[in-house]
Every structure is written in C-alpha cells, then in structure tokens.
C-alpha cells in the first residue's frame, strides 16, 4: 500500500520537529567521540606527531588508511545517486538523499584527515595556489596537489548535488514551520515557489550536475590511487590501481549506504519508504562490486606473482603469508567469502542479510587500504631499512573520532533535512509512472521533472 501525499509529508517531516531521548543520547555519544579526537589532535600538536606510531620507513599508517577509506565511502552517494538518476531508475527515490549526504560528510572527513596528518598542519594552506610571499606555486606535478584539487572539486560538486534536489523540500519545511525556523528555511529554499519555470530549471541543473559529478567521482579516487601508483614503491607502482581504487570505493560506498539506510529505517520508522526492494537492489549492486573487487585483487596479485620481481615478492609474501597474513585473509573473508553467498542467494538478500554483508565489507575495505599502505612501505628495496608499524592510542582515537564525526553530522543532518526527498516521493505517486504534467504559461502542456520512464 502506497502512502498518500499528506502521509509522506507528515512521515518525512516528523524527525525535524520531534526527536526522541534516544536521538539526543546518540548525538551526545557521537559528539563525545569527535571531541576525543579533537583532544588527541591537540595533544599531537603540543607533543609532536611522534606520539603517533609512524616511524622510518613507515611514514604513512592509520592516517592515510583512513583518508582513503573515507574518500572511498564518499563514492556511495554521489556516484550511485547520479547513475540511478541518469538511468531513470524509479526505485532510487527514497535512496538518493541519504546517499548524497554520506558523500558530502565523508569527503569532508577525508579532506580533514590529511590536514591532521601533515607535519605542520598550520601550513596546510600552502597547498592552495595563491599569490604569496614565498613567490611559489604548488607543485602541479605532485599527485598530492592533484588530490587537493580533486577533493575540493568533489566536495563542492557533491555539496551542490545534495543541495539542488533539497531546495523544494526546504520550501516544504518552510511552509510547515513558523518563527525563526521559517526564516532559516526561507533562506535555504532560495525563494522556491514551485512554478513550472523553477521546476524546469531545477531539473536541468540536476541533470547537468548528475552528468558532471560522475567523471569527477571517478577521477577523485583514481587520483587518490595515484598517490601510491606514481611512486616506485613495490606493489604500489601499478597501472591497475586507478580502476582498482574506484571499484573498491564504490564497493565500500554501497556498503556504507546500505548500513545507513538500515539504521535510518529502524530509528526514523521509515519502513514504508525504505522497503526490502531497495535493499534487494542495492544488495545486487554490492554483489557485483564484490565480484569485481575479487577480480581486481586476483588480477593484481597474480600479475605480481608471475612477474616474480624480488622487491615486489617481498611485499607480496609479507602481506599474504607473513606478518600481515591474518589481516589479508580476514579481508578476503570480509570482502568476498561472507558477502557473496549472502547477496547471491535471494533468501538471504534481506534487510538483515544485506546489512550484515555491508558490515563485513566496510571492515574488509578498511583492511584493504591498510594492507596497501603499510606492508609496501615497510618492505621497500633495501632489506636493512625494513620496518613495521603499530598505531598508538592517539591514532586509534583519531580514527574513532572520524566515525564519531560522521555519525554526528549524519544525525544532525537528519534533524534539519528530510532524509528522504519528499517531493521525489510525491512524484512517484503520479500516474504515467511518475511524470507530472504541468500547464505552462503558453497553454501547452509540457513534461517536467522527469523524462519518460
């Protein structure tokens, strides 16, 4: 049974106006985690970054692992939502908003981590090209400079991509509220009246953003992979890294999206909206990405093994047989052996099933990033300078706080913005498969909002 338009509005606006005690407990917990991270970062600034477990030769550890992990998670939203929008997949309607929000927040976290990890964070702005007293531009040959531009572009683009389809909903909130809240949402709604002209422009803008954001998203994670692949480090210097990272990012992104949707469904009582079919469909996508991930990992490892070059083999055996073997095989179990049967067998591809598979995938993909960063750095060419890495409590706290920050931003977002697009759900109610027909000024009927489906 489909909910009516009034019901949709009522259900989806409810979290904005009423919050349970549990909600505030969750906010407090997330904020505490975030503050713990801020405190740890303060301690690091005061005492020196030596309070981390990094050493020589492992100059990157949890910091870059988490950076790649969060940038990877960000591929949940924008990419999935853009592709589903461009292919007119109607089941996407309740999914896009919460996916796009994941993107914005995880890119934000991904952008903050490198600032905390550099030796002199107070000089991080030197990455920005601006006329300065040093009379020098950033080095455009450096993959880190590419990173800076890619991530700032992605953050801007995905924020716009999230904002555009939210404008009509901001107007809905504006009309449903009074006082200060009304004033704030009036600004956010940018004078939205819902005229045909406005709808048309919104639709055009959303289409342009959806087309533009796909190559941006692909380039972002490719460039993140080039932070590794552009160096002569064994097992990093590989042309497969670009597509491997993009596939891994989409993989972990879908898993994060499924987890977020399962939580939203439970805590915001969205059972009517986030239905088993959505988890089924996303579960199939996750299955595809799991198989693709296995294919890439297999191709990467097999090529290295056949090439049999001693420096590569040192890293290869270190990760699959020696010190890092427990982590490596846990990764394979988490990314492939557990999720594939759950997602491939229809009976298991339930909400609980996909959520369990997503949990293991998130863990597995974090391990994947760790296994890319650390074993290679610890086993470069000259065996005398080999080393290993163990994080300290400071790094663990910072990592926990990145999850706290994600939770906090997401919780607060759900308080201020409907987590499911109200107007898109209403469009779904229309006959002709959700193609509303609006009279235009010259009397002709024209189709707005969506192309034929």
């Amino acid at each position: 049974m489909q909910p009516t338009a009034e019901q949709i509005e009522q259900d989806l606006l409810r979290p904005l106006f009423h919050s349970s005690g549990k909600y505030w407990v969750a906010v407090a917990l997330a904020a505490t985690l975030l503050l713990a991270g801020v405190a740890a970062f303060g301690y690091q600034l005061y005492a020196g970054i030596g309070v981390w477990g990094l050493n020589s030769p492992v100059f990157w550890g949890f910091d870059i692992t988490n950076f790649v992990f969060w940038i990877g998670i960000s591929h949940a939203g924008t990419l999935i939502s853009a592709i589903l929008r461009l292919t007119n997949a109607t089941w996407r309607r309740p999914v896009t908003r919460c996916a796009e929000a994941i993107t914005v927040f995880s890119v934000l976290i991904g952008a903050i981590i490198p600032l905390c990890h550099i030796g002199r964070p107070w000089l991080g702005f030197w990455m920005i090209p601006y006329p300065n007293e040093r009379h020098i531009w950033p080095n455009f040959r450096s993959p880190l400079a590419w990173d800076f531009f890619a991530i700032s572009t992605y953050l801007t683009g995905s924020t716009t991509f999230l904002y555009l389809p939210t404008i009509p909903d901001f107007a809905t909130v504006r009309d449903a509220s009074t006082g200060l809240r009304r004033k704030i949402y009036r600004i956010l709604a940018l004078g939205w009246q819902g005229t045909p002209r406005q709808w048309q422009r919104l639709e055009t803008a959303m289409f342009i953003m959806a087309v533009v954001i796909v190559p941006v998203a692909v380039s972002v994670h490719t460039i993140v992979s080039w932070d590794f692949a552009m160096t002569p480090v064994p097992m990093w210097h590989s042309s497969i890294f670009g597509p491997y990272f993009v596939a891994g990012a989409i993989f972990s992104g879908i898993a994060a999206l499924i987890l977020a949707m399962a939580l939203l469904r439970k805590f915001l009582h969205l059972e009517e909206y986030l239905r088993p079919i959505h988890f089924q469909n996303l579960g199939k996508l996750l299955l595809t990405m799991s198989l693709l991930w296995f294919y890439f990992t297999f191709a990467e490892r097999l090529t290295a093994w056949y090439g049999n070059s001693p420096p590569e083999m040192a890293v290869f055996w270190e990760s699959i047989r020696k010190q890092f073997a427990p982590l490596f095989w846990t990764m394979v179990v988490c990314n492939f052996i557990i999720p594939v049967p759950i997602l491939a067998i229809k009976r298991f591809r339930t909400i609980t099933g996909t959520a369990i598979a997503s949990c293991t995938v998130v863990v597995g993909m974090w391990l994947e990033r760790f296994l890319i960063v650390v074993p290679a750095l610890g086993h470069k060419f000259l065996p005398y300078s080999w080393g290993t890495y163990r994080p300290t409590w400071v790094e663990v706290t910072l990592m926990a706080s990145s999850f706290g920050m994600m939770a906090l931003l997401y919780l607060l977002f759900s308080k201020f913005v409907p987590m499911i697009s109200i107007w898109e759900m209403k469009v779904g109610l229309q006959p002709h498969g959700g193609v509303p027909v609006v009279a235009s000024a010259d009397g002709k009927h024209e189709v707005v909002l969506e192309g034929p489906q």
Partner: protein
Amino acid sequence: MAHKWGMVVDLDRCTGCEACVVACHAENNIPTAGEDQAARGRAKHWIRVERYWEGDFPNPRIRFQPVLCQQCDEAPCEPVCPTYASYHSPEGLNSQIYNRCIGTRFCANACPYNVRFFNYYNPTWDMPLQLQLNPDVSVRSVGIMEKCTFCVQRIKSAEIQAEAEKRELKDGEFTTACAQSCASRALVFGDLNDPNSEVSRLSSSNRGTKLLGELGTKPNVTYLERGTWEDATHG
C-alpha cells in the same frame, strides 16, 4: 663550468667503523634519537652503514654498505612534493628546503633508498652534545623532512672562497664530513664535471655500480666492489 657533485663508495675499503655516521651527526646537527625512539624505528642517520650477512655459521660473511642520499638525477622524491620543498639544485643536489616543507612525508615514501628522515619531535641533544652544534647548519623543527645535503654548507663556503680569490675550485680542496672522517678512504667526494677529479676517475672504474640503478633514478653516488669478501681482504 658548473659543478656536479658526486661521491664514490668503495665497498672493498669500507670497514664498517661508522666514523662517517658520527661525523655526519656532528657536522649536520642531527640529534641522537635515543634508545626508546630508535627501538620505535625513529633512528635518524643521514648516512648509515647497512650490514648484511651471507652464509651460515661458522663461516658467515659480513658486508658493509654505507647508504646515504644518492643525489639522483631522476629523483623520485622531487616531483611528488606538493610545495617544492624537495628541489633539484643547479649543481645536481636533491635539496630539501626546510622552510617550504609541510610534512606530507610523500618524498620519504617515494624514495627507494629510505634516506629521508622525518622530525617526529623537536630536536634535543644530550649534554654536552648541544655545545658542539654547527653554526653553519640550521636545526630542523618538528614536522619536516630532512636528508643528506652532501654538506652543502661546505660546498657553498668553498665556492664563495674560490670566487673571492678569483680562482677555480681545486679537487680535494674540501670534502664532506663523512668522506673527511673515513679512515680507509672508502668515501670520495668531488666534482663529476671535472674529468680529472678523483671522484670522476673512480666513478668510471669497472668495479662501479649504482645502488638500485635498475630503477632509473640515475644516482650520483657510485659503489665500487670487486666481488667477493675474500677478494676484498686478500686480493
């Protein structure tokens, strides 16, 4: 003619005494890491003597291999720095410009020789080592990379002196701290653009190899090695 600084490391001569390491610390204001930090992999030596054992007891062979920055012509550390802190000087040095460094540590990861070091803390010296700091060398703060400079302060002062006296630099007029302290003369420093310099002569020896030369980094340090350990001691 422009200079191109280079070095020769004669493995057949190296006794592994590590005088070069101590001299480098003294010349370049490198703090001692201390026991705890060294155990955590934070030991910092711009030049180190790597030890490799070959064969089993009772006839193990030990090989020493001093490793310092190879001052590569195609240095992997240089293009990856987003702020141009790792910079290729006109005289072929891989310079590290401390003021520009924001501490991404990307250069250290890209370096195949692991000869770049990060300041995890502000430097400290145990008494009385702080009394012998070299005033010609800046002390590096927390959060930045540092590395072998080929004793650029000595190069510069010799060049300035020669220019003041309106003459060419002579080979052997000055050398790096490590080469100066090497009792067995395993380390030879000089100008590779001067065909008559000792370092040029030795670099073209048929005993010469480049460390990890297969990576295409084009190092300006040449390693000389005749072959076996017996050859080196009895040959």
